[in-house]
């Protein structure tokens, strides 16, 4: 087995897993059997490709092998009666051969079905669409692999027992269902972008999974502007990733990032997608969030950021999608447009919002404005409060440093 083959199989796993698994699931109508057959196909590839060389179309090769395995298994099993109810595959809608509706889309919509809990939706999407192993999914959510395995099994059982169909919903339900799918992708991304707990600021595996899901959706439904908007948002945010942590592993705020380290290619791609997405009137949630990310991406320096435009976009976002976190970001943007005093004033009413009571960024934002205003004792209190509200080591190190800094002025 040579390195080239190992690399090719790993790449095929990242790129083609969803295709191999979803078309196999369509045939077997049994998620567990489909997983087994798809995994077998990848294992087989390691052996066969070493002897015969890497095929021109690895995805097609793997799909054929997985489906052949599934056919054999089904033939054997038809002797015994299967006890598990089968996945309800919709035979009336066009199959993958028609090239109209892709099996991967059916799979994504099944995993993010609203009859499953949001947590189950996310776990199933990572496991079945992204092909992450159960221990990998468990690690992402900081639970024991056995716990995650039980969760995934329960979710699969619900799909079978409640007969959640393996289908892209019809036009009457598509928008609502797509909303859930996009939210799952967005949550996977945000969980990876700033890991809620742990030693690493960024969980690259989750960020990459979310981006590949968004790319897949965009490829399969290229005219949907909400998908373009989400992909734009993810790419524009991902573009800054390399500058968010310094060489010695410390958090670097947007204001201090080395913009030369931003990924220009991702920014260009994100900008063109966001332009498309903003053509839809009124603009949607992800389009506005992506537009904000684009304003940052376009600014040559922190000082040259068009804060008026940022505030305007947050105003529009808040009208469309009123959430305490949007309100907080809007208040911070006001502070950056009009000065720390205005920022502090804008943040004050949010202190009474119970939804933000344990949200560390509110304390951190206040602390920063107070620091700029040289109100040292209050800044110390705010930094101390922010520190109690994060479980991420990199964020904690950053806040501790700031706290030590302001304490010197007491």
């Amino acid at each position, binding site marked *: 087995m040579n390195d080239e083959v190992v690399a090719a199989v790993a790449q095929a796993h990242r790129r083609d897993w969803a295709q191999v698994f979803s078309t196999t699931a369509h045939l077997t109508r049994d998620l567990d059997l489909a997983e087994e057959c798809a995994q077998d196909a990848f294992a087989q590839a390691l052996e066969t490709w070493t002897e015969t060389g890497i095929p021109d179309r690895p995805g097609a090769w793997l799909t054929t092998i997985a489906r052949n395995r599934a056919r054999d298994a089904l033939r054997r099993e038809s002797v015994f009666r299967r006890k598990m*109810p089968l996945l*309800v595959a919709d035979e009336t809608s066009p199959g993958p051969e028609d090239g109209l509706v892709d099996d991967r889309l059916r799979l994504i919509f099944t995993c993010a*079905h609203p*009859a499953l809990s949001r947590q189950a939706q996310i776990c199933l999407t990572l496991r079945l669409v992204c092909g992450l192993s159960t221990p990998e999914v468990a690690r992402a959510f900081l639970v024991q692999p056995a716990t995650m395995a039980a969760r995934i099994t329960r979710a699969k059982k619900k799909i079978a*027992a*409640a*007969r*959640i*169909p393996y*289908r892209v*919903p019809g036009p*009457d*339900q598509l928008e609502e269902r797509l909303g859930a799918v996009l939210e799952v992708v967005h949550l996977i991304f945000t969980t990876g972008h700033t890991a809620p707990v742990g030693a690493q600021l960024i969980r690259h595996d989750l960020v990459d999974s979310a981006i590949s899901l968004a790319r897949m959706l965009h490829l399969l439904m290229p005219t949907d502007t909400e998908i373009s908007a989400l992909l734009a948002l993810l790419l524009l945010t991902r573009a800054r990733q390399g500058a968010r942590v310094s060489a010695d592993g410390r958090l670097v705020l947007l204001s201090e990032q080395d913009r030369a380290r931003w990924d220009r290619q991702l920014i260009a791609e994100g900008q063109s997608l966001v332009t498309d997405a903003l053509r839809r009137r009124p603009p949607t949630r992800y389009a506005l969030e992506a537009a904000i990310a684009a304003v940052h991406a376009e600014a040559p320096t922190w000082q040259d950021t068009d804060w008026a435009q940022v505030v305007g976009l947050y105003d529009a976002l808040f009208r469309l999608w009123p959430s305490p976190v949007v309100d907080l970001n809007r208040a911070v943007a006001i502070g950056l447009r009009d000065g720390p005093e205005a920022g502090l004033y804008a943040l004050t009413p949010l202190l009474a919002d119970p939804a933000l009571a344990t949200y560390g960024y509110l304390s951190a934002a206040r602390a920063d404005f107070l620091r700029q205003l040289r109100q040292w004792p209050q800044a110390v209190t705010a930094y101390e409060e922010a520190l109690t509200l994060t479980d991420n080591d990199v964020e904690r190190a950053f806040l501790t440093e700031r706290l030590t800094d302001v304490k010197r002025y007491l």
Partner: protein
Amino acid sequence: MAKYMVLIYGDAQQWDAMTDEQWRAHDAAHEAFVARAGAQIIDGQQLELASAATSLRSDALGQLNTTDGPFLETKEALGGYYLLEATDLDEVTSMVTLLPEVHATHSGVEIRPVVDHG
């Protein structure tokens, strides 16, 4: 085809407080649901209020107790049910959205697949 139990829950006080006109609209919505589901409805009944319920259970010593009232004392009580046949959950969901209890603020509907022993 699979069988689903559609359980209708709501606040009995709010149902009690409905005017005749509200009941007429309510019943019309059920008729629309029945028309849409057609022969897929196996059974369906409205239940008397939970105050008319009798519950049976045993205590720790295995002594049978018969009590007045519903098994679970909750604000939202079971008010009725439909037993349906459908191809999948999406089909049941789209039919059930016709039920008025899905749209009132105090009530809601639970869809439970029936275990197929066949």
